[in-house]
């Protein structure tokens, strides 16, 4: 692996940048692996990386239907935060946030993690009470979160309109200063490069069409468009297609796949210093390093795998944003797209063993999986390697829907979906 540094950049510059090599090996699948990860997004590539790095396993393949990180990894709004209400969730997301903080150094790859803060705006008395409860709950768990008055909100994010005369005036906000954004592609590519360097085979354009099992029940491998591949363990990290892939092993999941849309504006100079979210009127905005305003819209309320959605959904978000930030009223929107999110009834993920021996699943991240990329990958790798969950992801089972031990984060999502 070519190490990236100021020195290597200088040396390649002397050779007119002709000496850079591909960042990961392009391989044909072998007949058998110890572990196959289904899904080459951030979560799947990260799981392969941590299996190799922390658990010493090398005979691993990641199989991806399309190209690396072309699904939800490329389609989200790159928000990273850990200000969730319940102990189970906040410890999971905080585990991830801590990994984000060291990720660029660890991978020798600039994931452009920028801790610019995340401000969740309150517009009603109910919002104020709920967000203050979040602030207190987070602080008890050692997670930074603080309450800002409307004046402090304005000082922290000047474009916001704190006039009491708008339809939903700003009554305050909860600010997590360690929250931020990162470059989505870089996370996946960084994990892929580091995993490939340790011997993980990354196989693109290879769709899994079946999961094969022994008469005794345990998995024996996968059928793919490039032929059958044997494996002792299979980890499914297929986001919106989790129900489809797990259905191949006869497992039903508590998931509904919905389109979630996002859009970006034309690029402008730095104008928006932080991430602002409003649950009540559904605004969700930050500015990328390229200068585009990155805007998250709502989910379309029906099952769909189309990776698009209705225009009225982003229009609703833009109405809210232009009321909160009047200076964006003449900003033109450049691109919009949709991703397929896998939503659980309690809006909490599943990172767990399944009833099928050798089959593991990491799914249900719904509308908020990007922030969890290193954390989920790390704990999914642990679960696969040790055949038991890490204490942090132990509550996030499929069985919680049978036992009633739901982790109801529906109200704690940044915006209502």
């Amino acid at each position, binding site marked *: 692996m070519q190490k990236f540094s100021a020195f290597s950049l200088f040396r390649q510059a002397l050779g007119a940048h002709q000496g850079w090599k591909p960042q990961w090996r392009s391989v044909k699948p072998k007949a058998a692996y110890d572990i196959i990860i289904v899904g080459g997004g951030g979560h799947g590539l990260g799981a392969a990386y941590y299996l190799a790095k922390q658990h010493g396993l090398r005979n691993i393949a990641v199989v991806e239907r399309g190209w690396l990180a072309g699904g939800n990894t490329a389609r989200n709004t790159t928000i990273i935060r850990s200000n969730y209400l319940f102990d189970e969730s906040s410890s999971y997301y905080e585990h991830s946030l801590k990994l984000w903080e060291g990720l660029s150094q660890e991978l020798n790859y600039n994931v452009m993690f920028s801790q610019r803060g995340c401000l969740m705006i309150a517009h009603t008395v109910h919002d104020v009470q709920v967000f203050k409860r979040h602030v207190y709950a987070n602080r008890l768990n050692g997670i930074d979160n603080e309450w800002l008055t409307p004046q402090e909100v304005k000082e922290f994010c000047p474009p916001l309109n704190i006039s009491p005369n708008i339809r939903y005036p700003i009554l305050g906000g909860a600010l997590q200063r360690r929250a931020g954004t990162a470059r989505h592609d870089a996370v996946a590519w960084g994990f892929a490069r580091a995993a490939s360097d340790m011997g993980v085979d990354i196989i693109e354009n290879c769709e899994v069409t079946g999961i094969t099992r022994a008469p005794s029940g345990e998995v024996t491998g996968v059928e793919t468009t490039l032929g059958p591949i044997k494996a002792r363990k299979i980890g499914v990290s297929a986001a919106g*297609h989790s*129900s*489809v892939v797990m259905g191949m092993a006869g497992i*039903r*999941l*508590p*998931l*509904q*796949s919905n389109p979630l849309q996002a859009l970006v504006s034309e690029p402008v100079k730095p104008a928006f210093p932080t991430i602002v979210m409003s649950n009540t009127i559904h605004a969700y905005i930050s500015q990328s390093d390229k200068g585009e305003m990155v805007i998250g819209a709502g989910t379309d*309320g*029906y*099952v*769909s*795998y*189309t990776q698009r959605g*209705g*225009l*009225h959904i982003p229009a609703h978000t833009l109405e809210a944003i232009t009321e909160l930030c009047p200076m964006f009223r003449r900003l033109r929107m450049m691109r919009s797209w949709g991703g397929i999110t896998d939503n659980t*009834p309690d809006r909490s993920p599943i990172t767990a063993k399944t009833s099928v021996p050798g089959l593991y699943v990491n799914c249900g991240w719904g509308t908020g999986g990007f922030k969890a990329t290193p954390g989920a990958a790390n704990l999914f790798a642990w679960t696969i390697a040790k055949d038991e969950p890490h204490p942090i992801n132990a509550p996030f089972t499929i069985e919680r*829907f*049978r*036992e*009633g031990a739901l982790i109801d984060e529906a109200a704690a999502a940044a915006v209502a979906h």
Partner: protein
Amino acid sequence: MLLIKCPYCGERAEVEFANGGEAHIARPADPMALNDEQWAQYLYMRDNPKGLIAERWRHAHGCGRFFNALRDTRTDRFVMTYEMGQPRPDITPEQAAEAAR
């Protein structure tokens, strides 16, 4: 935005409707006889198909009535809508191919 045919009012814009999730999930006739696994299946587990789905819609900003629809989740094309209480209709391969197009 989808164009949805309410069986009672005709074709209307999607914003008039609310989706009610997968159709034909009957409430258990004898709830006390169910074990936890059967309750979990009834309450939470879903087929979430990539392909044809039978689903409920409510014409919330119209007649207010529930009805069912057959739709292909790969294209969002409707095959048909039908009244509550009717069984899931059988469709021809041509209809399925048209919805998948």
